[in-house]
């Protein structure tokens, strides 16, 4: 029995959550192999081979793998699958898009978004936006599993010396054409892995007012999050959304500003270590999960917050 990890990367670097998925894979079985599919992705393959939990890397390259299209990736993975009992990937948009396509080809019922490995066939996963946890046991011989990255620590990233083997590329799927990707570039920490997240909601009232959030985030070296309401209203782009259908974050400190705390938002942040809520509605549900709640008008509180932060001289960037 060995486990096949599907690496997520950008042809140059591994995406950080590949390390979390590697940890989950190693908890299922010590014999973890990783497949990296891309175009000119040698450096990323090399980095993958340096993860000590990976015993072997299979690198598959072809021009039609450049943009990570699931329709191209799935057949290549299915071909490899016969040697493995488990296929593992992160439950982010890459894995969510890809894994079910693999699972259906293998006639396997996928287990999505696990937060704990109980045994090689039994897993814990949140359902109903994290308002219930289900323990599930899969009886399929081949198990397709996506993991919630924030529920697993990243593995060590150096010291490994796995062999890199070339795998065979599959045919191109001609009915899907990649057009473009618009990535929002930022110098701030990534939302999914940041130690501190400052999030704004509908209470921010405009995209302009988000600069109040930006100031605080810059001061704290934090990532910027948002509720769905704020994204829907166009205050900020979709890659900032935290919640059931956005990103799940587990920072040391989550500061929710002008966010009422719908079930769907709480699903994405309530596992944060310390939660602060600033909201003028004292009855807002966000206060039910906040360690520290401040009932105040955010437009008064945020400038004061900046002032107090400036008084502290020990803030680490």
């Amino acid at each position, binding site marked *: 029995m060995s486990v096949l990890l599907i690496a997520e990367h950008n042809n140059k670097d591994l995406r950080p959550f590949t390390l979390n998925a590697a940890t989950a894979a190693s908890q299922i079985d010590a014999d973890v192999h990783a497949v990296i599919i891309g175009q000119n992705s040698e450096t990323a393959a090399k980095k993958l081979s340096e993860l000590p939990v990976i015993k072997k890397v299979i690198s598959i390259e072809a021009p039609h793998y450049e943009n990570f299209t699931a329709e191209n990736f799935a057949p290549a993975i299915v071909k490899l699958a016969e040697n493995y009992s488990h296929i593992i990937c992160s439950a982010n948009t890459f894995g969510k898009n890809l894994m079910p396509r693999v699972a259906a080809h293998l006639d396997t019922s996928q287990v999505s978004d696990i937060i704990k490995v109980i045994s090689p066939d039994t897993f814990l996963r949140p359902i109903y936006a994290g308002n219930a946890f289900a*323990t599930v046991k899969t009886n399929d011989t081949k198990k397709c599993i996506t993991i919630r990255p924030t529920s697993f620590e990243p593995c060590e990233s150096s010291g490994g010396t796995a062999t890199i083997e070339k795998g065979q590329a599959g045919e191109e799927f001609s009915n899907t054409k990649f057009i473009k990707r618009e990535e929002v570039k930022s110098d701030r920490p990534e939302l999914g892995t940041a130690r501190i997240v400052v999030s704004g909601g509908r209470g921010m009232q405009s995209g302009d007012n988000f600069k109040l959030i930006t100031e605080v985030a810059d001061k704290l070296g934090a990532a910027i999050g948002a509720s769905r309401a704020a994204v829907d209203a166009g205050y900020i782009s979709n890659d900032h959304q935290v919640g059931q259908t956005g990103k799940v974050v587990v920072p040391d400190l989550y500061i929710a500003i002008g966010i009422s705390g719908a079930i769907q938002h709480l699903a994405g942040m309530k596992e944060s270590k310390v939660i602060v809520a600033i909201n003028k509605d004292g009855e807002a549900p966000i206060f039910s999960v906040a360690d520290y709640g401040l*009932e105040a008008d955010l437009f008064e509180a945020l400038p004061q917050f900046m002032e107090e932060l400036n008084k502290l001289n020990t803030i680490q960037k």
Partner: protein
Amino acid sequence: MKILVAVKRVIDYNVQIRVKEDGSGVVTDNVKMSTNPPDDNAIEEAVKIKEAGKATEIVAITVGAEKAQETVRKALAVGADKGIHVKTEGVLEPLAVSKIINKIVEKEKPDLVFMGKQAIDDDCNQTGQMLSALLNWPQATFASNIEVKEKSLEVTREIDEGLETVEINIPAIVTCDLRLNEPRYASLPNIMKAKKKPIEEINVSDLGIDITPRVQQLKVEEPPKRKAGIKVANVAELVQKLKNEAKVL
């Protein structure tokens, strides 16, 4: 062009769910049920495409027990032309649902299949992708914008890093994000009219596919509760607490 839209009946998104004491699942008796929210976006998009003269027929399909039919009826009230209800009892996994819809696609021959990107009950996010695999059709998941072209769709997808645009040739599957559009409400006259629209009922046993669950749900439990927090009086106190008590600054 014909569009098949899949809809699922789930516990309403506003309901705070309760876990059954025996750990066998969540309480669904006497709980408000609705159409899975992004499935409403899928219907809305199909209706908009038809209104723009680019589609001729919309078929709404659901798979489930008797009452699941309410979701098809609602789809008919906002603009679907015909309904299909595949009747099943018991637990249904996304793989089974995709196999069922696959059978219906063979019969109905739609050009496009739309559905929500994820059901808010089991949070699996699988059915659309699985169906595309079974049909070997292109898939555009997490769609926040769709442009209908001659023989293809140009779809903007919401991904973790931002936005991605793909062009997929018809026939194709699209799974819809909540930001794709603003679902309309059914007007009273349309609700009345929808009652006269046909809903074809099909017993799943007649489709000749195995839908036995592969994954056993051993236990459902409440997540660990957070311990109650405190309210602070002002910003200065908040910052002091964060620094000295929580030690996160």
